[in-house]
């Protein structure tokens, strides 16, 4: 064939198209007659993965703070629009693209690669792999598969009144099955007993559909397809034999749709000579800052390089085309890094600074340069200055930068300039971010009186306690001289921990060490606790799991890292709840302090993580020589025993506590509780809430559960680890330092928070129209009156803005505290935190 190019781009997804577009523009500028690049695509059309999205799917353009730098268009919108725009663009630019050219083999070296598709062999000096992670769809692997099975579903409405089998238990299978079941009879063939990998919303939707007798969706659990046979001249045309838990089963159907994920293309990539750091399926090959792999001349961009977002992939395509053509441009996110580091006292290239920082933090040694860069971009950088002159100089530098950007309509993150001795956070504040020290010192002052201060130095980190448990900060952190800190938000940190085992282990370990220090050995140093900590296990429990049982002989205690534990005792054959233990406290400590038999059964009230401390470790820790520690532990234990006894003699109190835990109050920090013996049903609480919150009430008094005069209306509980925060794309849900969880005005109305909240406290609503004043209503009867107007009609402007998520924000903006409590005329409504539950319940008993 003899085609020779400078660049061969494999894969016509957003990354590959963008790279080809840039290469095309470079050629056009250099007025070349024939292209120096070729774009090879295995399927008949571009962007295979996005073509496979369900019809009408809304595609997002994250991250919002990143600018797009590409010759192709891209913005958030429907799948069809995006695909169309790309097609128009690449046609207009005259991109040299070859379809149905799946690359089978790549051999050679820099300057002379040979790329073999089925039909031809192409030579290129360099290769850009933009093949994504989707690979080829996994097959079921049974006889008869080729007759009836399809691996994607373009339009669920295409079929009507058919019997369809959907094989798979992931999000794609669930979404397809639910959509099809509107017009067809659908069976989901699930290899397991549950839908473990599904997103929360998909899980609840599919279970609701399966359990609903009226829906046309059903599920075969623990089932596999054994074979598929055709039934000529019969309808339905196929007969599928399955192995199920209850024996063999045959179903006649019209088609089978298999959504089993895809074979990752790892083997193909490795065959080129590219190394992956480990055997994990989510491993990313090591890349230089120009996306070059360990094989010189082979570049990797897009999701295969660890960047699953479209905008990033397109930026990388542009960048890599420039790099290969010898243009040493700065990456598209360079201005962001520049802004982040502008306040620092160095006059170095930001990339050089980043490399130095990374080198100083042992835990981040395993991250590749790109991942570290992304971490910094999503974090906030703080720098402290000792002298006033330096502080002013840096502040004015940063201020100039802000002004320049504001003029261009941008608001990037900039360095936060502080002074030596400034408080970074105070003990008792709520905060979930994680701090890494890149330079200088930080002093930590724990909250307990008489506790020892500690000094942390470069390469170390702090703030992990609140990150992992959601508890308020247990110490005050003070900036030392010339310290540089990277403050990373929780979401980013969790993503990093989930993808990087070293980081996870490192943070877990430090958490354990500091917790041990706090609870048992405040004077011990890290070095002393290091070996003990390394041997302690962290146990994870689901809600309802048993930690230990009454009557067992115990040889360990537990520190509740996150979540909440309930203790119950058997009385007259029933389980009576006697204590509720929140995170940060000890469970089962009496077994190591004189009473080896467990007197209670311990269960996780919500998903919890516990650190197990066995007798030997406990003895080692408490023998550090400080008698006060042991005294404090004993005091705590005797208080616990007294509380338990108090609960024991009031069985109704235990039932009430049980009831509250069952409604999820174990993870609440601030919950509205109504005493039914005082509530007269005047709804002033709801009216007050609506009137102080733009006419939309955030609580439903009548709804919710009741037990023994304790009524818990449906309203946000400001959970320790808020479920709503889990999946908020614009990060609009935040927690203030005083603990309130609130939604700010960057909400895009996607509804993820509503789906994720297990207590149903979030509503998606249009803005309510303005109403006449109170006096106008009282005297002239104008307007709908106080409280939320039922079935209000939003204005056209409100409809344009769209529905946004609304929920209780504990009156963070309202003076003098929660409106609901202040408006209750009979004192029935109160807001309490978990430390007051016991007092509240006991009051009832009096």
């Amino acid at each position, binding site marked *: 064939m003899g085609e020779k190019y400078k660049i061969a781009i494999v894969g016509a997804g957003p990354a590959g198209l963008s790279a080809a577009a840039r290469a095309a523009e470079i050629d056009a500028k250099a007025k070349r007659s024939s292209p120096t690049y070729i774009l090879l695509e295995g399927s008949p059309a571009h962007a295979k993965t996005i073509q496979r999205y369900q019809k009408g799917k809304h595609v997002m353009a994250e991250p919002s703070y990143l600018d797009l730098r590409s010759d192709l268009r891209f913005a958030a919108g429907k799948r069809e629009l995006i695909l169309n725009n790309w097609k128009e663009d690449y046609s207009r630019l005259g991109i040299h693209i070859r379809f149905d050219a799946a690359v089978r083999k790549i051999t050679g070296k820099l300057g002379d690669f040979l790329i073999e598709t089925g039909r031809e062999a192409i030579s290129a000096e360099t290769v850009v792999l933009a093949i994504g992670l989707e690979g080829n769809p996994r097959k079921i692997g049974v006889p008869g598969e080729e007759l009836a099975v399809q691996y994607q579903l373009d339009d669920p409405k295409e079929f009507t009144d058919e019997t369809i089998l959907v094989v798979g238990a992931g999000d794609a299978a669930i979404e397809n099955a639910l959509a099809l079941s509107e017009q067809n009879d659908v069976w989901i063939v699930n290899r397991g007993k549950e839908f473990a990998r599904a997103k929360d919303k998909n899980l609840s939707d599919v279970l609701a559909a399966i359990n609903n007798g009226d829906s046309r969706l059903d599920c075969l659990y623990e089932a596999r397809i054994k074979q598929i046979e055709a039934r000529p001249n019969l309808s339905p045309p196929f007969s599928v034999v399955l192995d199920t838990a209850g024996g063999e089963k045959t179903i006649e159907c019209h088609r089978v749709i298999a959504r089993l994920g895809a074979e990752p293309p790892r083997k193909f990539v490795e065959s080129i000579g590219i190394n992956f750091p480990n055997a994990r399926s989510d491993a990313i090959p090591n890349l230089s800052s120009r996306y070059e792999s360990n094989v010189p001349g082979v570049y990797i961009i897009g999701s295969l390089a660890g960047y699953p977002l479209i905008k990033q992939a397109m930026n990388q395509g542009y960048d890599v085309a420039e790099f290969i053509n010898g243009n040493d441009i700065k990456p598209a996110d360079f201005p962001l890094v520049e802004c982040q580091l502008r306040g620092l006292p160095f006059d170095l290239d930001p990339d050089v600074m980043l490399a130095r920082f990374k080198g100083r933090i042992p835990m981040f040694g395993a991250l590749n340069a790109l991942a570290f860069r992304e971490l910094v971009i999503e974090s906030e950088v703080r720098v402290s200055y000792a002298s006033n002159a330096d502080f002013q100089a840096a502040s004015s530098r940063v201020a100039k930068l802000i002004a320049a950007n504001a003029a261009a309509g941008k608001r990037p993150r900039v360095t936060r300039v502080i002074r030596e001795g400034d408080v970074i956070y105070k003990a008792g504040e709520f905060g979930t971010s994680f701090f890494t020290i890149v330079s200088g010192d930080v002093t930590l002052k724990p909250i307990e009186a008489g506790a020892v201060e500690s000094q942390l130095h470069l390469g170390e980190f702090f703030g992990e306690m609140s990150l992992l448990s959601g508890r308020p900060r247990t110490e005050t952190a003070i900036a030392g001289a010339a310290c540089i800190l990277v403050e990373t938000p929780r979401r980013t940190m969790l993503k990093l921990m989930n993808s990087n085992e070293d980081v996870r282990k490192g943070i877990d370990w430090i958490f354990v060490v500091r917790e041990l220090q706090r609870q048992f050995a405040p004077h011990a140093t890290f070095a002393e606790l290091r070996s003990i900590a390394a041997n302690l296990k962290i146990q994870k429990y689901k809600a309802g799991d048993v930690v230990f049982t009454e009557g067992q002989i115990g040889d360990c205690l537990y520190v509740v890292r996150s979540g909440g534990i309930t203790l119950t005792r058997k009385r007259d054959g029933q389980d009576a709840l006697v204590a509720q233990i929140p995170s940060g406290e000890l469970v089962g400590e009496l077994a190591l302090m004189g009473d080896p038999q467990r007197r209670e059964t311990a269960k996780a009230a919500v998903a919890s993580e516990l650190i197990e401390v066995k007798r030997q470790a406990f003895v080692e820790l408490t023998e550090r020589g400080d008698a006060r520690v042991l005294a404090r532990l004993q005091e705590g234990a005797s208080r616990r025993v007294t509380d338990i006894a108090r609960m024991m003699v009031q069985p109704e109190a235990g039932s009430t506590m049980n009831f509250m835990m069952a409604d999820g109050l174990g993870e609440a920090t601030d919950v509205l509780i109504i*005493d*039914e*013996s*005082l*509530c*007269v*049903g005047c709804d*002033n609480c709801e*009216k*007050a809430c609506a*009137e*102080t919150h733009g006419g939309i009430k955030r609580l439903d008094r*009548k*709804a919710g*559960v*009741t*037990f*023994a*005069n304790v009524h818990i209306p449906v309203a946000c509980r400001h959970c320790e680890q808020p479920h709503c925060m889990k999946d908020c794309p614009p990060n609009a849900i935040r927690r203030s330092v005083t603990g309130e969880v609130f939604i700010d005005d960057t909400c895009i109305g996607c509804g993820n928070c509503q789906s994720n909240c297990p207590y149903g406290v979030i509503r998606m609503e249009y803005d309510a129209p303005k109403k006449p004043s*109170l006096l106008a209503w*009282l005297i002239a009867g104008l307007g709908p009156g*106080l409280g939320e107007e039922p079935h209000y009609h939003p204005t056209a402007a409100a409809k344009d803005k769209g529905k946004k998520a609304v929920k209780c924000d504990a009156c963070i903006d*309202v*003076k*003098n505290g929660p*409106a609901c*409590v*202040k*408006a*209750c*005329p*009979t*004192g*029935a409504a*109160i807001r*309490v935190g978990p430390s*007051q539950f016991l*007092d*509240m319940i006991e*009051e009832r008993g009096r």
Partner: protein
Amino acid sequence: MIHEGVLRHRNARYLWVALLLILGSAVLYSTQRGLRPAGGGTWQGYVLGTIGALMIVWLAWLGIRKRSYSSTVGTTAGWTSAHIYLGIALMAVATLHCAAKFGWNVHTLAYVLMSAVVLSGMFGVYAYLSFPQKLSENRTGGSRAKLFAELYALDNEGREVARHCSASINTAVKSSIERTAIGGGVINQLLGRDRSLFILEDAGDESAKNGLTNNKDQQELIAYVSNRIPRVDKGVEAPNLESLLLILCRRQAVLRRIHRDIQLNAWLKLWLYVHVPLTIALLVALSIHILTTFFYW
């Protein structure tokens, strides 16, 4: 902080304020000796009258304060607690002000209206203290919506089972469901009257011509069905009738709860519909009373 009722708010501090006020008023009243008889005309009377008038305005202001959700002047519960104690103290102040001298005039009208307001308020305090607990116990941890949901489910069950019974039973059950009377006007709600009916096909001559029979508390229908059971012609009828009887008795239990819920709620809420209009009338009468005293001067 933890739940305390409106009377015990802040250790019943307003009780002490009210007692002090009554004491002070009594002392002031007792200083009235001399030529002029005790009453509204003396300076002590004027002082007590002014205090009383200001109190009335402040007491009525609760209606606005309770709806001023951004106000930082105390809490609604505190205002209500003060309202109750000082409202009762008002009776003493007003009586001392007028020295219990009555006649057929607008001044006594104002006094009578004020007493009506205070007495209705006292009933309100009684209602607020005793009914919520009774309501809560009656609902047994559910809500009114839940009771109705239970009722509707039982209705459906009943209709389904009745379909398999004889025509007269079917008619009786269906009509009893359709003609179950819940709530009604104010009197019906307050008295908890049950005017439910059902159609008894083979009724005697005591009932109305179309067979409509009184079904208060579902009792007649239950008696009708239970009387059929030992008199069935076919064996297959009996189990149907027995399950029907069970459903009807469950329905009766739920309806009793619903009726009681409605009745208690009516007593809980009604007094305010007397208290507030009387207050408006009082304010009018008071204004006239004050205005006309200037003519006496």
